[in-house]
Each structure stands twice: as C-alpha cells, then as structure tokens.
C-alpha cells in the first residue's frame, strides 16, 4: 500500500516536472530541433555536447524530445479543454431536456463508443488534408467530447431530480445561479478525475497520430514521429527509440497517477 502510494507520488511529481520542463523548454536547451548536421549522424549520447545523442539526420535528440513534449502537452491540453467545454455544455443541456435531446445524445455517445474514435480522428485529419496544431486540437476535441457529455448527462440528470435542486427551482432562482451554486460544484469531483484521464488519453492519441505521420507538419519534432523514425535504427542507435518511449510512458503514467489520487481524494 505504502509502496504503491510512494510510486503514485513519484509519478505525480514527475508529471509536474515534465510540465515545468515544457514551459521552460527554450531556456533549457538552446539547440534547434530542426537543424540537420550530417557530420553528427547517429552520434551516441553524451558526445560533443549532445546529451541524448543525435538521430539519422544529425538532429539533437534532446532538443527534439523537448519540442515534442511541448507539442504533445499543447495538443492534449487544447483537445481536452475543447472536449470538456463542449461535452459539459451538451451534457447539461441533455440532462435538462430529458425527452428528445437526451435520447439523441445517448445515441450519439453509444455511436462514438462503439466506433473507434481514433479511426474517426485519422480520417477527419486525412480528409481535411491540412496539418498543424489547430487542426489536431480541434479534431481530437470535436471527436472526444461525448466522453464528457455522457458523464455530465448521467450525473446532472440525477442531480436535477434532487430535492435541493427542486427547492432551488421553486425559488425561481436564475439558471446561471442554479448552475454555479448547485449543479456544477456537485460535478467537480468526477469531472476533475475525467479531465486528467482524458488528458492522458489525448497524449496517447496524439503520439499515435504523429507515429502514422498524420497531423504534424513535415519534419516537426513529435514523439510519435521520433518513434517511427527510430524503428529502422533500433539496434544501431537505441537511444533514438528509448528517449521518446520512456518520456511517453512517464508522462502517461504520471497523468494516470494524478487521476488516481484525485479519484481517491474525492471518493
């Protein structure tokens, strides 16, 4: 039990460190992640000032890792925020108008649950044909909002039949006040847990997309892209694989640990 707790704490601190590193990134590593230096191809770690070595084009792995971290966190944060705002708003509306809209939303969430979200995102990005930060954020956000909508609809529906909410309605208090004072505070525990887990899911989704070469501009530093490029040189230059893989695992585990702690704290 205590060992598990220590592990969770470690993962949580790690997540904080990673976020801090992402924010301070440009000040920590001055190298340009895009700069090609054919003389430094496959340079092993700790040589010529390259902390984590270089890749097949002589680009600095540490600098690319940092750029990829910023990219990942940015996409995940943006997509989570969009899914959260959209899903919460739609879930609340559906809970309020139980009859038609509520049923429609349930159908939508069932559809998105049975349909692989990832495939949907891939096809949307492919169809749009434009790569870039905004496209990815919007696509992932617009595809995954039903996760939030479903939870909010379920919890808010039961909340709207709660006697204290009925009493508030009988006072004819304004909708905004009802929402802010009585409905949203009751949703905070489950929403905060969901936010963190969704954030982790978005990091994985983004890495998977960039692994397939979708979404990020050509040559941009992404963890998925780095993993993909490393495959051919797995045996000769293992640092190209290990660095992004380890970071991805740590980031996702850290986020899950945070979610777990929140869930325990609110239970």
């Amino acid at each position, binding site marked *: 039990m205590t060992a598990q707790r220590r592990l969770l704490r470690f993962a949580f601190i790690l997540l904080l460190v990673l976020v801090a590193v992402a924010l301070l990134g440009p000040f920590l590593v001055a190298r340009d992640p895009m700069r090609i230096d054919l003389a430094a191809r496959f340079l092993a770690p700790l040589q010529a000032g390259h902390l984590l070595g270089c890749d097949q084009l002589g680009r600095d792995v540490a600098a690319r890792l940092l750029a990829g971290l910023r990219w990942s966190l940015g996409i995940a944060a943006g997509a989570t925020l969009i899914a959260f705002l959209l899903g919460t708003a739609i879930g609340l509306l559906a809970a309020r108008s139980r009859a038609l809209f509520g049923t429609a939303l349930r159908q939508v969430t069932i559809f998105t649950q049975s349909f692989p979200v990832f495939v949907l995102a891939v096809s949307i990005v492919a169809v749009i044909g434009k790569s870039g930060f905004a496209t990815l954020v919007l696509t992932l956000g617009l595809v995954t909002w039903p996760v939030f909508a479903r939870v909010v609809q379920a919890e808010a529906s039961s909340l709207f039949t709660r*006697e204290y909410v009925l009493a508030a309605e*009988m006072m004819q208090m304004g909708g905004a006040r009802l929402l802010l004072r009585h409905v949203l505070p009751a949703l905070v525990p489950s929403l905060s847990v969901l936010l963190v887990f969704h954030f982790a899911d978005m990091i994985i989704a983004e890495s998977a997309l960039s692994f397939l070469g979708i979404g990020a501009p050509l040559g941009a530093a992404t963890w998925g892209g780095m993993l993909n490029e490393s495959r051919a040189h797995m045996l000769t230059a293992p640092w190209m694989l290990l660095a992004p893989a380890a970071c991805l695992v740590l980031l996702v585990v850290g986020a899950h640990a945070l979610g777990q702690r929140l869930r325990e704290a609110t239970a």
Partner: protein
Amino acid sequence: MSLLSVEQLSVAYGRTTALRAASLQLAAGEILAVVGESGSGKSSLARAVAGLVKPHSGRITLDGSDLALRPRVERRAIQMVFQDPDASLNPRHTVRFILDEPLQILAYGPAAARAERIETLLRLVQLEPALLDRRPIALSGGQKQRVAIARALAMQPRVLLADEALSALDMSTQSTLLDLFASLRRETGIAILFISHDLAAVRRLADRVCVLYRGRVVEQGDCAQVLAAPQHPYTKLLVAATIDPARALQDPAFLARLADGVSVEEETMQ
C-alpha cells in the same frame, strides 16, 4: 374565495395517468391533508401544484388567477418541504448559506437585514442559532427538516406543501414536527397542504382531509367527520387499518373480506 384552487387536474407520465381530474380547494390559513397509499397520485398532485411537473390538463389558481398564465415568479408563493431530509439540503452549503440564498434571490435587503431575518426564521422553526455554521451532515433528520421548512418560509410563501415531510423521521421527531406545523399556522397564518399516508398525524393536524385513491379524489371533507364516518370503501379500510386495526380484525365479516383481499373497486361496484 379559496386561496389555492386545483381544478380538474390530471397528471400523466407517458401512457400512465397518475392523477385523474382531481379538484380541491385550500383556504387561507387552512391545513388540508391529502391522504392515500403509494401510487395514489399524492406526489403527482404535490409536484404539479409546485410547478415541478406540467399537468396534462386542468388548472391551478392562486387568488383566482391561473398560475400557468402568470409570470413564473408568482409561483414563489408556493413552497415545498420534501420527504427525504438527506436530499433536501445541498450538502456543500452551511445552514446560514441555505437560508441566506432565498433572501438574496428576493433582494430582501443588505446583509444585516438578512441576518436578522435568518434569526427570525430560526426562531420560527425552533432551531438554535449555533447550528448556522454547520453543514447538513452535522444535523439530525429532524433538524434538517426544520432547516428545509425555514428555507421554504424564507420565500414568504402563502402556501406550504409538505410532501410526506415526516415519514422519514422517527416517531418522537414526527410528533414535535407536527406541533411545529401547527404553531407555524398559528403564528404566520400560512396555509398548508399536508400530504401523508399517516392518518394518525392527519387527524392531529388537519382541518380538512382529501382522500386520493388510484389517482382520483374519492372523498373530501371535514377531517374529524371523514375519520369518524368514512363513506368510500377505501377510506373505511384506511381508517380501520391506521386508527384501530385490532377492532377491525375482531369483526368476523370484515376479517373475512380483508383476508380474501376484496379490492376496493369491487366494493365500489356493488
């Protein structure tokens, strides 16, 4: 003229009709009890009068004007106390906040005036001011119901709906809350629609009683009169069951009919 008038009110959920053309009148300062078993339409009546469900047909008038045609704020004149004390109060708020919120909504006045009003409300429901900073979890069931009553009174209603407000409480707490309802009527002149399945409580509190059975009003009248000489078979059975079951079972003919489960409809047909 009566203060609250329910005319031919029907409530339906999908295909099931919970309340069929029920009519009743509540005069100012009166306590009218609505009795019936579970599924009789009591709660549907309460919720329709409270404006929480939309009636299928019929009207609810307050001072002669149809509530459905008036601005919604006029419904503030009707407030409700619910059955479940644990769900009636927002667990996140203190008693002070719970009582202050309706006063803010009414724009009752500056903080000092509201604090004074909260003290008055506490006195009305016989609660100690020391409870003001507690949250519902730190209150007993009876105290929670008193706070819920105070919150309802804060809106300065003319009609108080009590929907099985006592049935989740233990016997001695029920008794003191019955006294509280009686004293509230005396002190504030509020009219109370007291919904209950407990005839013993009804007999002690109400002026008039209205009996619901399968969504219909089957009997209505002066409380003492109805309980002393019930007319409808269901009311007879209810009076026998709650007031003196031992005597009912000593009558061999009644015992036989009960044991055979002769339903009230069958008797009504005869």
